[in-house]
């Protein structure tokens, strides 16, 4: 699972690189600039960002401020970590329906060059939000169970 998610992340980054290079090559080597390469690179880029953030980055790898928490006793630290994870998980979950609604409402709009439906292009954001909510709640549950 983890390996597959990382492989898709790596492929998406590779595709971003390939698309930008293709645009350069078409302009200089073939004298025929592409109208859609910048747009495709941007779509691949947002999917790479949110796919990776949702499935391939451990929560501990994000930038966090740990000066205060590290100075607290272990029990208090665990309690705070559980509480904070629950708050973040529930907040993301609560915001999810409105976010999905908002993105779905974009179905009539299309990207300029490729004419792709914008709701599909932007679907990576609610996907990320839902996955992140689940991961924070899972983290809280795991912290609770580890003790008992």
């Amino acid at each position: 699972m983890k390996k597959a998610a990382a492989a898709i992340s790596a492929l998406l980054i590779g595709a971003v690189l390939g698309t930008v290079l293709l645009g350069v090559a078409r302009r200089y080597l073939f004298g025929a600039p592409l109208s859609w390469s910048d747009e495709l690179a941007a779509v691949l880029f947002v999917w790479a960002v949110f796919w990776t953030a949702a499935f391939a980055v451990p929560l501990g790898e994000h930038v966090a401020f740990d000066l205060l928490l590290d100075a607290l006793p272990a029990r208090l630290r665990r309690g705070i970590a559980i509480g904070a994870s629950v708050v973040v998980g529930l907040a993301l979950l609560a915001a999810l329906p409105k976010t999905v609604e908002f993105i779905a409402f974009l179905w009539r709009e299309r990207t300029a060059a490729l004419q792709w439906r914008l709701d599909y292009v932007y679907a990576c954001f609610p996907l990320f939000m839902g996955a992140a909510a689940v991961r924070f709640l899972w983290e809280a549950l795991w912290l609770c169970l580890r003790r008992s």
Partner: protein
Amino acid sequence: MSAPFLILVALFVALTLARVPIAFAMLVAALGYLYAAGRDIGLAADQIMNTLANNYLLIAIPLFMLAANLMNAGSISDRLFAACQVLVGRIKGGLAQVDVLVSVLFASMSGSAVADAAGPGLVTIRAMDKAGYPRGFAAAIVAASAVLGPIIPPSIPMILYALMANASIAALFLGGVLPGLLIAAAMMAVVWITAHRRNFPTEPPIPRAERPRVLARAILPLGMPVVLLGGIYSGAFTPTEAAAVAALYALVLAGVVYRELDGPRVFAAFAETARQTAVILLMICGAFAVNYAVTAEQLDKALAAWITGLGLSPLAFLVTVNLVFLLLGCLIDATTMLLVLVPVLLPSVAALGIDPVYFGVVIVVNITIGLVTPPYGLLLFVLAALTRIPLREIISECWGLIGSLVAALALMVAFPGIVMWLPRLFGYVR
């Protein structure tokens, strides 16, 4: 300040102190603001997706990171290191001087400080350990010289600033060149003094006959900044395209010419790039959601009105901002400061008639100094984790080097020409 905005601030502070990743703390705080202000929650998604999908310049970030990761996966760091040993190894404290020079060269290919510390920096620390340098000093000089990464072009923080301030990225990149060289010179001076006082070793001479070969081994890697910056300034490439060409150059060099990359290594470099990209872009997303609230509340304009009302001179403003940022940099993450605090200041900068390019370069130098100022210095943590050298030993050795960084920053504030001379010469600013 309205009640919904106070909710935003309270949520952000509480979640950050509880060690929630800063990106998520910002996102949840912004969602709380939208909810409390009775606005559409979907605006957060709108703000984030439109920013990400419509700023082609942002795509340069993963591509610059990829170029650095591919170089670090191959032997490019070792080649630069060997070449610099020929050049400055014979000075007292030779390996530390080599480290500063390697950082200058690496900085002209990469835009992030962590990539410099984790790549060529580790090579230097290993060599210094063998040569009998105090390990704390080895890590301290590597951390301090790694700040050159985002100062000498290309630069990821400058890309972020260009986006927020709507300033020319080409002008910002040029503005970083002389400050970067000034910092390198200041650091080499500190190393020279320390090396004489504590009798650090000099490197054994490399036989004259071998020197051309060692230098030649570094020629192809040094072609990268030529392609990168030459492409941008000749107008051949946009910065994003230049970053892609640089990544391709690194891939071909390490994979095809030197034959040092196999499938798993290439895959690891791409996967690592994806993770680093997600981490930084998520912070950008959170910051844009928070900045939406700041703009909606017109806090940035209120601050500008207040500051102009004080009758501060531009110089007094710059000195104050720099002092505050240096202090905050000891406690707060650099990216957060750049993404959250700097946009709030931009209307004030404009009101005082300070050039946005000048302000951008000064502020990027300031917040990168924050990467090495304890207690919260990202580079110190990264190096302590990678080398297992105790943080305390690194911190006790880094004060002189931090002093040289702050002195260079003070010179930039006192003499704006250090920043503005090159952008003016190339006609980017008047």
